[in-house]
Structure formats: structure tokens, C-alpha cells
């Protein structure tokens, strides 16, 4: 891909509406964006996702976001919760939003790299149309995708729950079912 990974993150933030609430949601949306860019357009932004706590994680994306915040293209607002929620996620909630400088950066990117910008927009649209999942549900969908990829064979929701136990993941079958529906809509599961 001709674009620096950080500029793909910037275009993605714009394509997802100009802001994303939460590090986990950002990581997981970009996980699926990465999948869709590869599947639909053969593009690889170089995010290098790897299995990690809370599901797939990209250190590249984490550092790119830091860079964009540092350079004033993205604003990070942190609110402290002081405790885990019922699912054990995020004590601190970070909101990532394009700044006016970020918006003009996006405009420049769209002008200089129109094809790539369109592809990022299309991939994001497909993800949003598949269902606006919250970060917990999106994480479950990402984990289900990871399990399917590793299994390399079709699995139903019950099978995925069983496979998940091997990873010590305890997930409800219904939530996995929702995740699989989401993956099917994206064309990422049979």
C-alpha cells in the first residue's frame, strides 16, 4: 500500500465518522478494516495484527494513534471510570476524534491518494453496514474470526464456543452467533 499506516488510520477515523470511542473499539474496527482491505482490494496497510489479550491487537496501530495525537491530527480525550465494567474491559475510556488539522490532513490525503482513500471508505462502509457493534461485541466477533482462521475449517457457533474454551475464553453461544452473523455479512465466514 502506498500510504503510511498512520495515514490509513487517519482516513479510517474519517470513514468511521470522524471519531471512535475507546481503544478497544478502535483496535477492533481497524482489525476488520485491515481484513476488508486485504480481502476486497488486496491492500495491506502493515498493521501487523497479532493475537493478544482482549483479542487481536496491533502495536503498529497503537503507535500510529500516538503519533497522530502527538502531531495534532487526532485529539485523545480520556475519561476515568475507576473500575472494570461487567465484561472486564477498560478502566479508562479514550475517545479519538479528528482535529481540524486532522480534517485538512484527510482532505489532502483524499486529494493526493484518491484511490486508496476511496478503498478505505468503502471498506469502512461495509463494516458499518454489517452492524454497528459495541466494543465488546466487536471483540467477540474478532476473536471468533481468529478462531475460524486458526481452525481453517467451517465451524458453527457451538463449535466456536468449544474452540474458545481452549483459549480459556468464556463466551456465550448467543454472542458468538451474533459475531458469526457479523462475519458472514462481511464475507469473512462461510
Amino acid at each position, binding site marked *: *500500500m502506498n*500510504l*503510511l499506516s*498512520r*495515514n490509513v488510520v487517519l482516513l479510517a477515523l474519517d470513514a468511521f465518522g470522524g471519531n471512535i470511542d475507546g481503544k478497544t473499539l478502535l483496535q477492533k474496527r481497524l482489525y476488520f478494516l*485491515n481484513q476488508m482491505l*486485504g480481502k476486497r482490494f488486496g491492500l*495491506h*496497510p*502493515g*498493521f*501487523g495484527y*497479532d*493475537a*493478544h*489479550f*482482549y*483479542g487481536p*491487537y496491533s*502495536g*503498529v496501530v*497503537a*503507535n500510529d494513534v*500516538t*503519533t497522530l*495525537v*502527538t*502531531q*495534532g*491530527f487526532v485529539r*485523545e480525550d480520556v475519561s476515568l471510570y475507576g473500575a*472494570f465494567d461487567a465484561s*472486564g474491559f477498560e*478502566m*479508562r475510556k479514550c475517545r479519538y476524534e479528528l482535529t481540524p*488539522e486532522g480534517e*485538512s*490532513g484527510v482532505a*489532502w*490525503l483524499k486529494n*493526493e491518494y484518491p484511490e486508496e482513500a476511496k478503498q478505505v471508505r468503502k471498506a469502512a462502509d461495509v463494516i458499518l453496514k454489517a452492524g454497528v457493534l459495541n466494543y465488546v461485541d466487536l471483540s467477540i466477533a474478532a*476473536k471468533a474470526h481468529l478462531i475460524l482462521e486458526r481452525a481453517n475449517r467451517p465451524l458453527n457457533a457451538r463449535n466456536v464456543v468449544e474452540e474458545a474454551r481452549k*483459549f*480459556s*475464553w468464556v463466551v456465550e453461544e448467543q454472542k458468538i452467533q451474533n459475531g458469526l452473523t457479523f462475519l458472514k455479512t462481511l464475507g469473512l465466514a462461510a
Partner: protein
Amino acid sequence: MSQSRKLRDPIHGFIELRGRECDILDTPLFQRLRRVSQLAMARLVYPGAVHTRFDHTLGVLSVAGRLCDALGVDPDHSLIIRYAALLHDLGHGPFSHVSETILDSLSTPALERAAGKKDKIHELITQKIILEHSDLNPALATKDREEVARLLSIGLDQRIHRDIISGPLDADKQDYLLRDSYFCGVTYGVYDIDQLHQTLCVGQDDDETALMVTASGVHVLEQFVLAKYYLTTQVYRHKVRLITDNMLVRGIQLGVLNDKIKFLQELYCFKDSKKYLSNYLSWDDQRLTVELLKPDYAKTYAGSIFRDLAERRLFKQLFSINLKAVPNQVRMALPQQFAQSRKELEQAVASELKKHQKSPVDANCVILHLYRIESVRAQSRNSEAPIMVNKPGKPVPFEDESSLFTSIEIGLSEEYLECYAPVSFTDEKQKLAIKEKIQAFMLNFLADKFDNQLKLPVQHEKL
């Protein structure tokens, strides 16, 4: 199979090599690492920095062994981890990371992996050596070699095995921080390794076991991450060290592309063949330097830059622009389009220099260098996953758990554009005047190039 052997090391004391590890040590392949410096030409800044990949590798073996013992890794996996520690740097070329940069810059897009992650060529070379090189035949069984290669690329059954060899707390970092500090004669990289090992644990989270620290290890971890940050800013990104590294890279690149020196082309244009690998492994710092200093190459770019390095006639920094000081448009466009704009910018600097100096400077010897120093918070994860603190109930990322790190501004990360060239100044006054002029010129040139509407007021970075 040889018996065990103990080697004395200034960082870790006695390092014990057992059985087949001694056989690996005795291979010409491994002994070559004695002639590959750990920090390229950092010795021109820090005279003590003469340590090599050989000493570092033994240090990684020592730390990896201690980690396996402390974390209760079973003997079979410990053995593979120890072999991986010994073999992980075999693919380094002359001057370590310098060769890596050149190989990557001259590689073809065919090396893009399907996963979208571009392989570093020296890592590909390391894999090939481990799996195929005949030197290792008497030392290691094929099955062990395959296991080591798998551990270094994707990992084994448990994540913890890979964490010891590659991750934010791996044995490699634990050794190089202490070793580079010791040999450079600085204390920036020093941290309490014994306390760190006391607090490391195998944590269980949602998906798998991983290397973590206990809650009581947060402070020593802060020390470890700060050590990495300070060593980066004070040693790895030292102004003169950046110049020597860039001179090496540019000298060799010009040797390949302009001088068309055959042995450099054969060494730095990667080919996936046994012949290439065999030739690659016949080169080290010493052979490359001796070869390029021969009279045959005196008039080539490569020969001349290596002569300058040998006699410590270093290029000078002409400017250092923090990208925070440039308009948004430039800050966005320059990193994105640096590769394709670099030559044009270097030619522009050379033309501008001509106006201020009697002797012209060859544009090929003007080096523009764009680099960044990650914030201290980002340093705790680097490009890898975050370090996790094993709290009751749920592990949490270190940077969220440490009071010190949560209070550090995320915005401490910096990106710089610097310029180096073979200029000489008559005195300090002339030096400052020329540097100011060139910097002001570049700021305006960048503004003109990336946004014709935007004209910058001349800004003076501290020189």
C-alpha cells in the same frame, strides 16, 4: 556433543553453555559474529563501544536461560529457547542495523508477505541459515532447527515461549540495554535486572498465558522502560551516531547504485539462493572496510566515504527540524512522500550550499534523514504488544497501571528532519550563519513544495 563451558562476561558474570550450545559456538557461522559490531560505528562517539553481536548473543542466551528457570519453562522448550537465543542474530550483515537498512531499501516489493507485514530481510536470512546452513548440521538436529525457526517467526505452543525471545520484555532488550550502556560508558540503560526477574510471572488472561509482571514489579518496570527511552535518546539517536550510521548507509548505497561496485551489489541485492547466502556470510565489518579502503575504490563514493569514516572526517549536521515546528500540511505530506521527494530535497540543499560555500558539495553526499523518537509511554510497547501487569481479576496494560507513566504526556514523541553533508566551517560564526540560512531555506522549500499557498515565516530551530 561437547561438554559444558563457562565464559566470563562483563555484564552477566559466568555464562554457561551446555552440550550442543558449545558446538554452535564453535561454528564459523557463530564466530563470524565476533566481527560484526553491535552498534556499527558508535565507537566514533563512544570509544568503548567496540562490543559485537557475539558478546550480545551470549548475553541473550544467559538472560533467556535465567527467564526459563525463573518462569518454570519445561526442559524441552527451554532447550529450544536457548538455541533460539544463540541463533537469533546470525543473519546480521556488516555493521548490524546498517546492513538491515540497506538490504530493505534495495529489496523488491515481492518480499511483501500476504499478511501485509514486510519481512525484514536479515530475519529471512536468519531463518534460512537456521534451516539450511551446513555449519549447523553437526550441532543441531533438523527437528530442533525447525522448532527454533518457528519460535523466532510465529512462536511455539505457548505465547510465553515467544515472549522470552521476542516481545516487550524479551531477553534481547534485557541484555542490550545493560551491555550497550556498559560499553558506551553511560548509565542511561541501567536497570535492576535481578528485581525485574523477581517480579516477572506467567499471567493468565482471556486467551493465553503470557509474560507479565506482578503488581509489585511496576516500579522496576518503570526503570526498565525509562532505561530504554534514555538509551534511545542519548546513545542510539546521538547526533554524531546518526551521522556515522547515515554515512555508512549512503556510502554503501552509492557504492551499489552509482559506483556499481560488484561485490557490494552481490552483497546487498538479496537473492533467495544458497550462493547468495554463502557470499553474504563471508562478509563482516572488517572485510568490508578493508576492501573499500583499497586504492581501487579511492575515487568511488563508497571508498571515499569509508575513508572519511576511517579517519573520522565526519559529515556535519546542517539542520535539525522538529516537525512540530512546521505547518500541518508539511507535517502530513513530508513523512508520506519522503522517499520520493528525498533526492529533490537533497539537490536543493546542495544548490543552496553552493551560494554560501566556496567549494560545492555533491548532492549525492547531502543526506536527509527523517526519524522519530517515540514517547516514553510508547517505548513501553514499541511495535509489540503492551506489557501487562498481572492484577487480581484481570491483567492491565503497564502504561495504564503505572502512576508515573499515566502522568506523562503522550505528546513527548518527536519526529525530526535532519540534514548531514561534508562541509567544513572556518569558524563558529560562519557555521551558525550557514546553518541558519540552510534551515530557513529548507523550511521555505518544504512549505513551497507541499503547499504553494502557505509561506512560512523563517523559524530558527535550536542548532
